[in-house]
């Protein structure tokens, strides 16, 4: 079968509440990699445990998964409300380094009083304000990732210079009540800028997504209806165009909770994905298995082969980085561009 011109993009959540060791995550990511999915996601929050289940830092878990996998993208949730923007940027950039260009992050906010009390710095704020700050953090991260131009490390023994300081820049990012001077401690990561994802189902997040997201999730209700997703997608595209962004450079994924009990369910899911795809509703899907073991196996061994057989899904990874899987170009560095056009 030939690779489709514009492949269907698939991602899957590997959330496993209560798991305390790396092995189940590694197994799930390898399984998703066998299905040639674009990336796995792992949710996170700085809130209390849900139903008493232990939770690990998602970015750390996926860093642990990175050397145990080769191609699959790794996209942890990283919250922006209580974490320092400098640390968000450096941790995601480092995930990109240890995975050789497979990192992304799902930006999220901390809206609850419970989370605010864990930090004791400020009270919980309304979603609009939090998402405005999240957008500022995403902007700060992008500026920090650009603060080292490619080739800034020169190791020129003749002049004694390790760095070409003309290729290092202060980020001078600004958010509500704060600034981040920069540059980053981490050189520009392999992807230039790791992939930024946002769940834009709700409107406050959609504004941030329109400005900064490379990947957008649109969650569906318990009975997935293409109409609601299409409407949200159209709204997002309008916002992108208003901001001068090309909608073709933003991958929109319908985020579906799935429960697959038998092979027939896996085929039905392939039918749904195929028809939404054919109707141009979305660019792909983010599946959230209800039972991580049962559903992921059926997804990879049932749904994926059907989609491949129908020529909608590639059967190999043509690229090495997450951006390549997503058919997104490596972003030009703003400083390099400025110098070339000067």
């Amino acid at each position: 079968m030939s690779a489709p011109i514009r492949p269907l993009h698939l991602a899957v959540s590997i959330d496993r509440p209560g798991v305390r060791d790396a092995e189940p995550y590694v197994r799930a990511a390898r399984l998703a990699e066998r299905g040639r999915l674009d990336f796995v996601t792992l949710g996170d929050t700085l809130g209390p445990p849900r139903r008493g289940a232990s939770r690990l830092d998602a970015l750390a878990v996926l860093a642990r998964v990175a050397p145990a996998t080769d191609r699959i993208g790794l996209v942890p949730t990283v919250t922006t409300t209580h974490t320092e923007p400098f640390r968000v940027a450096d941790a995601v950039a480092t995930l990109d380094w240890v995975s050789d260009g497979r990192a992304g992050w799902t930006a999220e906010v901390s809206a609850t009083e419970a989370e605010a009390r864990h930090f004791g710095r400020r009270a919980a704020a309304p979603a609009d304000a939090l998402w405005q700050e999240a957008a500022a953090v995403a902007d700060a991260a992008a500026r920090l990732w650009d603060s080292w131009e490619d080739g800034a490390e020169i190791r020129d023994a003749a002049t004694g210079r390790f760095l070409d300081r003309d290729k290092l820049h202060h980020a001078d990012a600004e958010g509500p009540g704060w600034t981040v001077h920069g540059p980053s401690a981490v050189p520009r990561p392999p992807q230039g800028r790791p992939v930024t994802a946002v769940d834009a189902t709700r409107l406050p997040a959609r504004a941030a997504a329109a400005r900064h997201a490379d990947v957008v999730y649109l969650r569906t209700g318990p009975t997935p209806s293409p109409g609601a997703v299409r409407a949200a997608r159209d709204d997002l595209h309008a916002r992108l165009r208003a901001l001068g962004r090309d909608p073709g450079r933003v991958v929109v994924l319908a985020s579906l909770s799935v429960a697959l009990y038998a092979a027939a369910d896996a085929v039905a899911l392939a039918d749904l994905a195929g028809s939404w795809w054919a109707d141009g509703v979305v660019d792909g899907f983010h599946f959230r298995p209800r039972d991580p073991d049962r559903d992921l196996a059926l997804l990879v061994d049932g749904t994926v082969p059907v989609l491949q057989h129908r020529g909608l899904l590639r059967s190999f990874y043509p690229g090495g980085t997450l951006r390549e899987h997503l058919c997104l170009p490596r972003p030009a560095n703003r400083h390099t561009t400025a110098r070339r056009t000067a």
Partner: protein
Amino acid sequence: MTAPGARQRRQMHLAVQVPGAGSTTVWAGPDSGSHIGFPSFRHLAATAERGLFDFLLLAEGLRLPEHKGRIHDLDAAGRPEPLTVLSALAAVTGRIGLAATADTTFHEPYELARRLASLDHLSDGRAAWHVVASSDAFTGENFRCGGRPDWCGGRPDRSQCFARAAEFVTTARELWDSWTPGGVPRPFAHHGRHFSVSGTFDVARSPQGHPVVIRSGESAGESGGHSHEEREFAASTADVFLAGPPGTPEAGQALYADVKRRLAAYGRRPEDLKVMPGVTFALGDTDAEAQENAAEIRKQQVSPQGALFALEQVWGRDLSGYDPDGPLPRIDPDPAGEAAPGPAPIADRLAVAARWRAVAEAKGLSIRQTVIETTGRQSFIGTPASVAAQMVELVTAGAADGFVLRPHFTPGGLDEFAGRVVPLLQERGAFRTEYTGATLREHLGLPLPVWKG
């Protein structure tokens, strides 16, 4: 475990600090690879684990050095974020401890305690935390709380930051203790001078109970104003004291005794805190060759441009017109002159300059030779047998429980030590011949922390 026929000795602990940003890393030449790419970390971790080291330590980068408002371009620069690198290294190592440097001034306990506990789970009990309290506004410019002194407990003043660090560790331990050993989360509340936090921690008690806590102090040769506070901090709460290089065996003994003496006041035994000086080394097949290698490393560390930069830091003046291979400037330092901002300003320029001049005059040295002579000589220089003997002597003399090695090269800087010195330490019965435990606490011979439910 002791090799057959070897004399039974107290075994030392060994760790390696991965070379990265800073003036001690040799970045030019065929032995110098990337200190950013993961394969280098993997190589060093594999070497250290093959050498049965206790742990591997990564430093943290919070701000690139600047000079006269521009990025300092002469030294190796750039650091990946340590906790993320160590989480990845947990996948490709099985036994070695994984120590992350993490600052407390620009962090919050809930988040950092969570990341450290996560690393301890992901590595099956091999996590450690090197506690650092930065206190300069220069670094603060990268952090939102740097612009919010009310968040950081006041202006980043050194005593404040020390106090904050101590309360930070206490709070982290309370979070780590908040789950019962049976796996049930219980609410926590900490209301102190620097932190007022409450809620429920979401990471189950980790394999080590608490990750190993490492605290640094100043070198034995200096009795700076804060070494007392650092030692007291270590004695009260740390598992490892990362000391400066022992200038002389006597100075090392004095520091060792002083730190150990402080433990009793906290109900702790001398063996509950391991004193491990950070040391550098140069090896050779003969002593003469080792001296040559050491001199060559120093020359690579102090380039002509680097020598002038070091001179400008002391003199506080623009000396860019001077010849690094010529004599020291005749003009005196400007005590109020500009220095690179950051954590370690030179306290007394006139005194340092006087010392440099004395050395240069006595030995007839150029600027570059003077800088090489007066800064950063390797702690151990010699054949593998001689370096092994020097290390054993310091441990036997009660000046150290072990060492944190600081190689000069990435990624191969530990290869020769692991391959040639470690076997000699083992023959002497001074170092383990296999990992007998699984966790870092077990490697270090530290007890599991008592659960303070």
